[in-house]
């Protein structure tokens, strides 16, 4: 990382890292204060601040929070220490006993209820080979997403919870005889693999994410259930103008109008990590699910709750060789823009493919989940990302699994 100290327009020092401004070119100290003021939560035990630089974010944080709260600062490169010791705030900040600066992650100790503060500029210049990069990037993506959608999520939660669709345990009882589930997402591999589902539609439990519904229906495949999670109104397209009248599962923060307008069987899901949902679930003794940040990861959690022996992933590409992100006819899908940060990952076909930061976050979630879950998981996305030790299966192997289950063999 190349650090470059400059003079800002207001005469104060400012900083560039790898050609990008870490602080404002005009008013660096005010800019850092503005960011920290908007970012901090007060009801936490401490803070992990990523990036030291000239100490401006640290100065702002130490001035805004109680001196009893621990502040750990993670330097992303050792040169930051020299910069900091030359900083105008160094002499003041070095006296605070609650501040600890670490350059080595081995000496990083934080508690679960610390707030992680990551100025986006540091995230952009952080070395992708840094061991903490995927974790911090995952946290940052989720923080930015929550910040953007929190008001919408709260509004949806308020209305959805009044619909009284709290019937998850009852539904679980109805399907407990089924052993194999197919989780259908709308990655590009679904273009081919959805054909596998048609002959065995009635033999397995098919849970489709909302954006995969229309591709399935276009081939005459009717899923047993559909799951929707997005808080934005665009998801209405997923259920609109299609002849689906089956079960839907919806996250309590999903778009209220889409949910309300669906007149057939509905079931609400309450998620971990969203406080109002956690509190309500505890209050009414209702199951809580891990969402993982995407509809597919939420779907997997749901299938785990239903205690399926086996889950077969369809359309779970989590990456792409070409430029398209989703299957044809899906309501989702876009072209990858040249400015997007892409990460190289291993593919089930033995080669490498690219994935976006978001998809990489979901890939890591699946890897972690599948490594500890009791569920046997298989993947059908030949050109998709390899998910940990989840084996790839072709059509013959898929049919063999179904046949073995049907005939009682395992």
């Amino acid at each position, binding site marked *: 990382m190349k650090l470059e100290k400059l003079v800002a327009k207001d005469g104060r020092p400012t900083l560039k890292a790898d050609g990008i401004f870490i602080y404002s*070119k*005009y008013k660096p100290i005010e800019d850092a204060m503005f960011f920290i003021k908007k970012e901090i939560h007060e009801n936490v035990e401490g803070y992990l601040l990523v990036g030291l630089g000239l100490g401006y974010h640290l100065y702002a944080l130490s001035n805004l929070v109680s001196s009893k709260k621990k502040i750990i600062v993670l330097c992303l490169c050792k040169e930051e220490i020299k910069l900091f010791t030359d900083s105008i705030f160094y002499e003041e900040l070095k006296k605070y006993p609650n501040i600890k600066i670490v350059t080595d992650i081995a000496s990083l100790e934080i508690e679960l209820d610390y707030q992680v503060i990551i100025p*986006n500029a540091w995230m952009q210049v952080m070395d992708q080979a840094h061991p903490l990069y995927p974790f911090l990037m995952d946290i940052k993506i989720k923080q930015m997403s929550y*910040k953007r959608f929190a008001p919408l999520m709260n509004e949806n939660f308020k209305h959805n919870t009044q619909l009284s669709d709290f019937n998850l345990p009852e539904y679980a009882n109805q399907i407990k005889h089924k052993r194999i589930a197919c989780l259908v997402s709308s990655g590009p591999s679904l273009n081919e693999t959805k054909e596998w589902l048609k002959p065995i539609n009635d033999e397995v439990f098919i849970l489709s994410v909302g954006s995969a519904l229309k591709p399935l229906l276009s081939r005459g495949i009717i899923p047993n259930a559909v799951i929707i999670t997005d808080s934005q109104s665009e998801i209405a397209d997923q259920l609109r103008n299609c002849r689906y009248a089956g079960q839907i599962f919806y996250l309590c923060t999903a778009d209220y109008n889409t949910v309300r307008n669906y007149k057939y069987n509905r079931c609400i899901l309450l998620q971990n990590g969203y406080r109002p949902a956690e509190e309500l679930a505890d209050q009414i003794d209702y199951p809580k699910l891990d969402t993982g940040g995407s509809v597919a990861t939420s779907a997997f959690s749901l299938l785990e709750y239903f205690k399926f022996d086996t889950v077969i992933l369809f359309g779970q590409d989590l990456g792409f060789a070409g430029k398209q992100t989703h299957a044809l006819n899906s309501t989702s899908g876009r072209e990858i823009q040249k400015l997007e940060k892409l990460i190289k990952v291993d593919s089930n076909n033995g080669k490498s493919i690219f994935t976006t930061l978001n998809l990489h976050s979901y890939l890591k979630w699946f890897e972690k989940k599948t490594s500890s879950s009791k569920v046997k998981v298989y993947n059908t996305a030949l050109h998709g990302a390899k998910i940990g030790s989840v084996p790839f299966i072709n059509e013959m192997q898929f049919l063999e699994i179904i046949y073995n289950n049907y005939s009682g063999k395992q």
Partner: protein
Amino acid sequence: MNDLIVETIESYNIYLSKLPNGCLLIAEKLREDQIQVALNNIKDFTEGLIWLVDASDLLGKNEIKVEISIERVHEFLNEINDALEIQDYNLVADLFEYELIEFFANLDLIKLKQ
């Protein structure tokens, strides 16, 4: 002065007077790391600015004096574009907050008595 010109002048003035606040909003969203929201706003801003430039060009051809410097607008758009290309959102925020707000705030509205 025909109705179309009057309407165009009114729209021009309304849009111009809203621009400083719009620029501030973009800067704030960038500084709060609400990048996607800011980028959507920048897209709208750019389209509006192009309209403003086109309107000023047409008004000029109808002998209505418009103060906006098209060259300066192009310079700003190029600087913003260069900063976006390298994803230097702090710099983009600075451009909106410390350059563009002042630029638009100093432009006079078109007087309808012309």
